[in-house]
């Protein structure tokens, strides 16, 4: 890397024995663990954090299928066991040279606002993170969320990017209050949701909407509608929950390209709906300029000015290729039904008649289409897809169904068209009752969960 003050020292490639890594303050250890293999990490001394989540000393953490980094502010010693594809130590001459410094500074500023907001019983800062794809937006959002929880705040974090789920499956938009420590090992990077058993890391309670497409621009109308629904729920929670109110909102926004006009309009929509007063642009001075001029004269619904700040993309951000992302999504779906290494879940397989299910399909986008949902007879095409179980009734109109909350997901294991039977994997036993299912367009099935 040619960034001044930074030396990239390749440590060792693909080793599997236990080794120790020493980091000086503000240095990072960057690592990539391929899906399928795992790496165990212990902090021997000092302090270390992963995406803002502090790793206590001598606790073994296992990572699999991630590309991430361990950052230390005080220096640390790490013990690594396991294979990683690629790892390196990022050295910085001084802490200010590490872009992570701006995350801490930003957090400190947000905290000031939270202190003031709590005192005056106002809404805390509402922040939106945007930037080009693969610029580290989610890492920034995650870090800021974790920092806030560490200092006792209860922020609402919103995932507005359907490409990756937050506490839910890809293709969804969700919001959750983060009040407790986050799980550095979580498969989706955020944490896990309630199960019938205890959890060593406190679970998070998300509210989920089903979008069913990869990009916000694929079905703009639905995206805008769901964002509005999400924002409505978030603002209700803000106004009713005093703890949350002063802590504010962090929105992990969509990736936008530097020249795409549609992306900017959707960002403006999110800003509008969530009354965002701080827009953080990661790694794109150009988008920063565009948004600055765009929001220069606008005010939030609370009458505040909208500030647009730019922070640098970390040079440690790596492109995740499509197959890696695909495997990440697969891991998230698996985790939803079967749990992870720490907690095994037992989903239920049930066989139901075609007639007992109402399945909607997301219609292809067309301007004259009246409904975006159409009913669909079960077919073998549905095999290996995950359907969203909507918190609505089959008697509700498609418009109500598509904007309803998601209760959960079922996986279509097998469709027997002759006998009109469909075999589904559900997280919870018992009949689905009159809950309609929605078949999205994305993510496409890559795996046979039961195979």
């Amino acid at each position, binding site marked *: 890397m040619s960034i001044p003050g930074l030396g990239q020292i390749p440590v060792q490639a693909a080793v599997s024995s236990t080794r120790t890594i020493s980091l000086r303050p503000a240095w990072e250890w960057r690592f990539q663990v391929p899906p399928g293999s795992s790496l165990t990490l212990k902090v021997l001394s000092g302090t270390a954090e992963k995406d803002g989540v502090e790793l*206590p000393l001598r606790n073994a953490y296992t990572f699999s299928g991630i590309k991430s980094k361990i950052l230390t502010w005080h220096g640390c010693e790490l013990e690594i066991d396991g294979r990683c594809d690629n790892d390196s130590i990022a050295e910085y001459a001084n802490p200010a040279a590490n872009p992570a410094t701006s995350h801490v*500074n930003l*957090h*400190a*500023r947000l905290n000031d606002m939270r202190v003031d907001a709590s005192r005056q019983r106002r809404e805390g800062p509402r922040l939106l993170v945007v930037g080009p794809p693969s610029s580290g937006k989610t890492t920034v959002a995650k870090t800021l969320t974790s920092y806030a929880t560490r200092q006792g705040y209860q922020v609402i974090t919103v995932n507005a990017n359907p490409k990756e789920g937050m506490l839910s499956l890809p293709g969804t938009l969700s919001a959750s209050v983060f009040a407790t420590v986050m799980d550095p090992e979580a498969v989706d990077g955020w944490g896990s949701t309630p199960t019938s058993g205890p959890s*060593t890391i406190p679970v998070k309670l*998300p*509210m989920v909407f089903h979008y069913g497409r990869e990009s916000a621009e694929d079905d703009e109308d639905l995206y805008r509608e769901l964002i509005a629904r999400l924002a409505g729920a978030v603002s209700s929670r803000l106004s009713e929950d005093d703890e949350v109110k002063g802590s504010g909102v962090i929105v992990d926004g969509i990736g936008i390209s530097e020249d795409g006009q549609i992306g900017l309009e959707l960002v403006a929509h999110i800003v509008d709906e969530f009354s965002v007063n701080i827009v953080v642009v990661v790694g794109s001075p150009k988008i920063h300029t565009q948004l600055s001029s765009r929001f220069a004269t606008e005010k939030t619904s609370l009458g*505040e000015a909208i500030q647009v700040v730019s922070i640098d993309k970390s040079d440690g951000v790596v492109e995740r290729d499509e197959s890696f992302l695909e495997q990440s999504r697969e891991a998230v779906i698996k985790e939803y039904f079967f749990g992870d290494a720490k907690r095994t879940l037992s989903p239920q397989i049930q066989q139901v008649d075609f007639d007992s299910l109402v399945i909607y399909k997301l219609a292809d986008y067309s301007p004259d289409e009246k409904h975006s949902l159409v009913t669909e007879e079960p077919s073998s095409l549905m095999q290996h897809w995950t359907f969203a179980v909507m918190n609505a009734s089959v008697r509700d109109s498609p418009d109500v169904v598509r904007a309803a909350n998601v*209760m959960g997901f079922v996986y279509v294991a097998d469709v027997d068209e002759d006998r009109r039977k469909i075999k589904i994997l559900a997280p919870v036993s018992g009949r689905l009752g009159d809950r309609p299912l929605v078949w999205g367009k994305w993510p496409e099935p890559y795996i046979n969960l039961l195979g």
Partner: protein
Amino acid sequence: MSSDGAEVAEDYRLALEDLSSNMRFEISNLTVIARENTEHALAIADVLQQHILKAPPNKKLPALYVMDSIVKNVGTPYTLYFGRSLFKIFMESYAVVDHSIRRKMEEMLKTWKDPVPGSMDTRPVFSHELVRPIENALMKVRAASMPQQGQGGIPGRPRPGMFPHRNTPTPPGMRGYPGPAGNFPPQPHPFSNGGHPGEPVPGNAPHPGQQPAPYPPPSTTGSYNSTPVPFHPAYGSGLPLPSGISVETLNSDIQNLIVAMRAEFSQNPHDGGVQSRLKALLDLQGVVQHSNLPPDQLELIKNKVTELAAVTMRAPLARNSATSTPPIPAPAAAPPLALPVYPPSTSVTPSAVPAAQSAASVTLDSLLGKGAMAALLSMQSTNSQNTTPQPPFAGAPIRSPQMNHIEPPKAAAAPVPNASSLLDQLRAAGMLPPATPPNMPAQIPTPIPPPPPSMFPPGLSASIASLLAAHKPDSGRSSANGLGGSAGLDSAALKLQFRPDAVAALYDDLGPPCTQCGRRFKTDEEGRRKKTAHMDWHFKVHQRSTEAEKRGTHRSWYVDQQDWVKAREAVDAIHDVSSKEESAQASKDSEGPKYILVPDSSSGINNVCPICQERFENKWFDTVQEWVWLDTVLVGNRAYHASCRAEATRDREPTPGLSRRTPEPVLGKRKAETGLTSPKIRVQKTFV
């Protein structure tokens, strides 16, 4: 004369209340009474002290003169009694009186540092460690008020510095009391601000000639420094009278301190406080020598050094005074401990970040003017890592030393909210180059109204008042508020500054981490309570995990919007068993659904209702954040559906209330289940 102490005190109080002018006769008279009643010295001192504190501003000076006269003419034990709360007496009075009286008070203070004229005793009236905190505080007050004065063009308040350090003080008790404006007319100070209104101040080079204008005249520090300090042979002597702060003198001052500290260190090699102070000094010396600091910062460092000298010399002095004033509880040479926190400010923000440093340094004064007391008190209350130094004298004088200790870390850590305004004022007064990042415009839109105590009216008395202001409960937060400081939401500021305080806020400030999950808990009472609850929670989770593995767990459905909006994160309450049981009990007693917490499988409690043979269903009950069996009662070690049992026992145990409440028992059970559709309760699991 009189035998009853209370009576004497009462008489004395009445006499004091009549005292409204600096009449020499009256003051002498009161002094004589005090001398003749030394057996009631405590009562008299107490009365006088109370009188000084309570008297209206125009009566304070005469009362203070009475005290002055007594300590000079009678001495022990009054000196001791007043010494205990000298700081309080002096500063609280100083805060409310006007300028001319302040000047007189400063005069009087000065005489306290010298022996009583004509006396054989060579000791000062009050020991230096009693006087010095007051001087320091006055210096802070002066420095803090400077920007306002500079801006407003108010003629400089006359300062003690205008009177050269006199070897022949005029003790009011001895030579007649100076009249209000007679002996010391308020002559305009040669270096007052009015004299140099438009003088340009160079940006960063130390310039001896400049300092006198905006800052307290150097003669203040000069006379201050020349107070007899055992380890300071060269101290002060090298200061030309009108000089500003030169790097050389500062250096030599620091060097002297280092020498003194080394001496102390050699005596107490195991004393960590001394060690780290020594380290701090060495760091400071490095900064002074190697970085080109603007004069105002040098001035601040100078002040710090002076304070450090005070603190450093305190221990030996205390030892000296112990011999002279026997009844005082041994002034255990407790080293002030907070100084070790100073190094971060100097070592972490070296010349590389001049802007940050200047911002931090400037706030030293503003802090002392306002937040220091609160910060100090909050530090005390939270009992954080800085153990407050043990006061050599149990009384008010400790305050100032403590302030000094607290101040450096605070200043380093937190440019307070009003730092920007202070900076602005400094800049307006031409004292600061516009060196700070241009983030002010960015900051203005951010609504960060400074907390009440930081309202910093440009009055001197206000700053003193806030210096003395009682600690407010939210001051801890307001100091936390300082974390943001002048760094606005400006991209450049976010990137360029590294703020150790912001990192510390995420680590050490939060207390030690939980070894299992890394969550940090403070070490105060509340933190310990939370930690205990937290560890209980970890224990319970472990216990239940094994159990859950046996029966198998599954993912729950997500909540719907209504539940989500109503849900509340209960970070600690979840783990608090007793409150859970209480609330369970409470809702059992009320009209709420009957339920019991899902029992451990090892408890031997049946999971099938013995009456209807239906299995109890595990439900997640939001209000108690627990898995429960609804409509269930526990009788002995057996669980029943409440409605089944009510029906079954209705005939045998005629409990009218119960039967009336469940007139149709079977349906009653159903009713409880239909109640599940209420937002508070939702079905999470059905065992099959």
